């Protein structure tokens, strides 16, 4: 297991408004290597916007996003666009709710894993294919499917392939937007177990946005609760869920169905 500790991400007073609708209001937090931070909140609370500001996709109106690289710290929105477009793919990985948004459907499963590796400088065909095979195995996809198009995969397999594509380059920061969102409950459980063991094995820093309290409980070490663009409560996941202080968090937790 990789050691925990080094700070990977620091967000300082992030603001983003769409027209007159505030999506992020003074959001600040930091994240260390090996930590999984869950962000929960109802639709429209600003959690997906926040994720896209961290992924270099949406420019915040104000605030700072600092991402630590090997031996320097990058101010994501202070750098010029060309540098950002070079920096983000090698450092940050965004896993989408819908695997079709994160995969290239017209190239093979193996190609989907190899492509970001090639963008990061990988050239040798044999070793790219070997890495792709290794990752297919890690995410529980039969290696014989390496030349198949993701189009013919089930939703759960597509999502696992997207995760392999996202993690194969060893990003420092992984951002997940409802990673188990569109899946059957039985497939969800398996994917959660996979994500947990990968996070443990690779020691990556993860931000996972979800509206599913159960997913947050099983995956995240820490939790932030957002409402109308603000972080209204944060702490260790079990603390926030078992001893919520804010009225909205209490409502959220007491509304979960127990089966």
């Amino acid at each position: 297991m990789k050691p925990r500790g080094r700070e990977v991400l620091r967000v300082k007073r992030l603001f983003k408004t769409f027209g007159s609708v505030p999506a992020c209001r003074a959001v600040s937090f930091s994240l260390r290597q090996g930590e999984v931070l869950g962000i929960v909140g109802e639709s429209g609370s600003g959690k997906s916007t926040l994720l896209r500001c961290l992924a270099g996709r949406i420019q915040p109106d104000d605030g700072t996003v600092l991402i630590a690289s090997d031996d320097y710290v990058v101010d994501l929105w202070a750098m010029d666009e060309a540098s950002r477009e070079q920096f983000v793919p090698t450092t940050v990985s965004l896993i989408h709710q819908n695997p079709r948004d994160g995969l290239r459907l017209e190239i093979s499963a193996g190609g989907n894993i190899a492509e970001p590796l090639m963008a990061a400088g990988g050239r040798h065909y044999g070793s790219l294919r070997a890495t792709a095979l290794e990752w297919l195995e890690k995410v529980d996809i039969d290696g014989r499917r390496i030349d198949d198009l993701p189009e013919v995969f089930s939703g759960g397999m597509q999502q696992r392939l997207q995760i392999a594509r996202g993690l194969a380059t060893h990003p420092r920061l992984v951002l997940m937007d409802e990673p188990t969102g569109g899946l059957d409950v039985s497939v969800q459980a398996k994917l959660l177990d996979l994500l947990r063991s990968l996070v443990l094995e690779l020691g990556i820093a993860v931000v996972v946005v979800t509206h599913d309290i159960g997913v947050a409980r099983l995956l995240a070490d820490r939790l932030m609760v957002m409402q109308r663009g603000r972080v209204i409560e944060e702490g260790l996941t079990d603390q926030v869920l078992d001893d919520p202080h804010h009225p909205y968090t209490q409502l959220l937790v007491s509304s979960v169905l127990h089966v």
Partner: protein
Amino acid sequence: MTILVSVSGLSKTFTLHTQGGTEIDVFDSISLDVRAGECVCLHGPSGAGKSTLLRSLYANYKPDAGRIAVQHDGESIDLVSAEPWEVVDMRRRTIGYVSQFLRVIPRVSTLDIVAEPAIVNGVPSEAAYATGRTLLSRLRIPERLWSLAPATFSGGEQQRVNIARGFMVRYPVLLLDEPTASLDAANRQTVVELINEAKSRGAAIVGIFHDEEVREAVADRLFEVGQSLVRKPRRSTAAREAAA
């Protein structure tokens, strides 16, 4: 003996915003020292706040005031004000907690669930699984169940899986919430043995034991937890609620 856990001035109040802002004062200004090799039994009537205190010692509940100094890595760290990542590290290596109910990822096998705490501490998986098998055998979980997920197990079996998991790592501090509640006599005896083994290797143990026989067999002293007080909503809370 060394004090491993030192609680001072600990207070806890719950404010139930979804229930008209009712406030429950669970405890006020509690102080308690727990030494290496000793087992303290939290004692008091149902609803007195024993579980709340135990959960506070695991940082599962957030006290409103006071300190919980825990010896971690040769240092004294206050669990109440520690950073989340510090708490995660303390839970991983120093503080073990056996809750009343098993809460795990669905469909993960019993042996994997039990071995996990050792594996996250860097124990090679072979050794971790060997310890896990030994514990499951001692707690009389039939071998044919080890590869199955515990979701369909009986209450007593789930509790024993939980206990096995809690004893996988030699935590210096161990918190036990009614570990024998739904166990038969033979398994109660095994749990008593596990607790006494932990004590003799120097663990500081805090537990809730309703079973008198178990309590007699493991507890060195009782710590009385008082009756909590329910207060009607304060005006300010009700006003906040209305405004929300």
